[in-house]
């Protein structure tokens, strides 16, 4: 089974470390990748695509060197390969206009304001990944323990077959 990737895009090393630390409960079933800029993120996405790892969730900062986070997410939304990918903006500095564009054009799934609490981030990630696996994965059973187990089991109940 190819592991599902969670990609974090964040240019400040300390903040990135904090995000990665908060994501550690998901490490056992997901593959966690980090990028410090949009260019960096694109390289990671290419590597994941080459290895056949689906990208389940992108946690993206807005204020990044070069291309802005919102523009990156909008570009991804237009790529058929990443339409199913759940997109979350983590930022303290996106203005109203950028936020509206992210919702309308990048179909943003969630907005996390800095600073965040670990539990809050984990709940958002758990919900988003649960939605992603139910929509895209054939075999849901490996995710019961780490994601929203009851919701995944409901989905298994409607499609579960004996072998």
């Amino acid at each position, binding site marked *: 089974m190819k592991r599902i990737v969670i990609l974090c895009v964040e240019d400040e090393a300390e903040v990135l470390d904090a995000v990665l630390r908060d994501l550690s409960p998901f490490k056992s079933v997901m593959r966690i990748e980090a990028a410090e800029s949009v260019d960096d993120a694109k390289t990671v996405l290419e590597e994941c695509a080459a290895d056949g790892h689906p990208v389940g969730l992108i946690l993206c900062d807005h204020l990044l060197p070069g291309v802005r986070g919102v523009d990156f997410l909008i570009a991804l939304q237009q790529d058929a390969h990443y339409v199913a990918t759940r997109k979350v903006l983590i930022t303290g500095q996106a203005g109203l206009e950028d936020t509206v564009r992210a919702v309308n054009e990048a179909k943003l799934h969630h907005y996390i304001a800095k600073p965040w609490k670990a539990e809050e981030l984990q709940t958002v990630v758990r919900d988003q990944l649960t939605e992603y696996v139910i929509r895209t994965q054939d075999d849901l059973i490996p995710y019961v323990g780490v994601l929203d187990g009851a919701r995944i089991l*409901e989905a298994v109940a409607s499609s*579960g*077959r004996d072998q």
Partner: protein
Amino acid sequence: METEKRVPDWLSVKSVGLVVAVVFFFIPFFIEFEGLSPMGHRMLSVFLMAIALWITEAIPLHATAALIIFLNILLVSDRAMLPLPDDYKAPGFSTFFFSLANPVLMLFLGGFFLADGAAKYKLDKNLAKTLLKPFGEKPSNIILGLMLIVAVFSMFMSNTATTAAFMAVVLPVIARLPPGDRGRIALALCIPIAANVGGMGTPVGTPPNAIALGALNAQGIHISFVHWMAMIFPFMLVVMVVAWQLLVRLFPCSSKTITIEIDSSYDRSPKAILFYFVAGTTILLWFTEPLHGVSSAIVGFFPVVVMLSARLISDKEFHSMQWSVLWLVAGGIALGTGVGQTGLDNWLIGLIAWDQMAPAMIGGALCLVALVFSTIISNSATANLMIPIAMSLAVSLGDDMNRLTAAVFVAIGASLAMMLPISTPPNAIAYSTGQVQTKQMAIMGALVGGTGLIIFILVAPHVWALFGLLE
């Protein structure tokens, strides 16, 4: 990039399985086996290939089934691509295609429609809520209640769907128990055990039952819905009660009370009411076959027709039904036909000196081998491979063993395999919750499987004979 330890793709079980399957397929073309007819050799190719593919799951289980039907037509039917010997009575190629429309599959399809309807109109949740009430709040009683309800549901719905639905209900209850409370293990294990065991109860409970019925039908032995239940249900209950006692003793709950909340209310829409009526009528007709004589397969088609016509099942739901299960069973029926027609079965049976063994031992061996196989591989694949051989064995033994007993023993053996997370999808679900360790599952699986084995091998045949269920 993080580095992951992984085996190169070409070394995976699946690709090795594919190579082994191809090699197995060609062995009988190059090596001559003593006493096996030329057609038997061709069928042996298909049989060996099926073993390799079903064990390794190199291609999906139902794809192997389709391949078996195809190869049977190309190798041993009247339209075979290779010349046929003069003394061989070739079955028509359509015989193999007809396995896809075997009456047993129609019975099973009826079961699918009832199960999908029950889930859609939340009849499963609502009935569970109503039925659980009398069991109160004492943990051991709740566990008994859960097990009985799960068992009854998995007699009609797939064991997997039943387990998933009830595990979703139980997860919040488990989360409220203190960490380290052994009651958590009991709650997480009681559901898959009840589903695995409950599946034995009716012909539509789990695919191995259908495979057994299909093989029996092919030989002119017609077993009605109630006949199957009369043979299995009482013993199934005994196994269930033993499993319950083991669970509450080995994994006692420290809390005095537990409550299960099921948030649901009966759907009273016209469509839901029509579904209740259709489901009730179908099950009533299945139970009363000896009175009216309408075969359970014909009755099974009733919910299909009504639910499609009244749009109780939408087009989309219809398309996403468990068709792969029907194909898997059909593949087993086709394999059985081919094995019987070519005489491969008799040759395989001749490899072992059965007359050295007591009949009871042979029955036990069938059940045990099925259990061991399906601990590792799919229950249906086990039944598909073993039932045709087991029934021919019964014939060759004469009066010592009944074909019905032989087929039922294999089906039951397959359902009793529940030692590992990979043994059945219900076990995989319980394991995935993180509440159960493999060791605990293995202990319970061995105890429950062992109990079932003893009851079915040593007690059941005498009771069946006593009540005339074997004629």
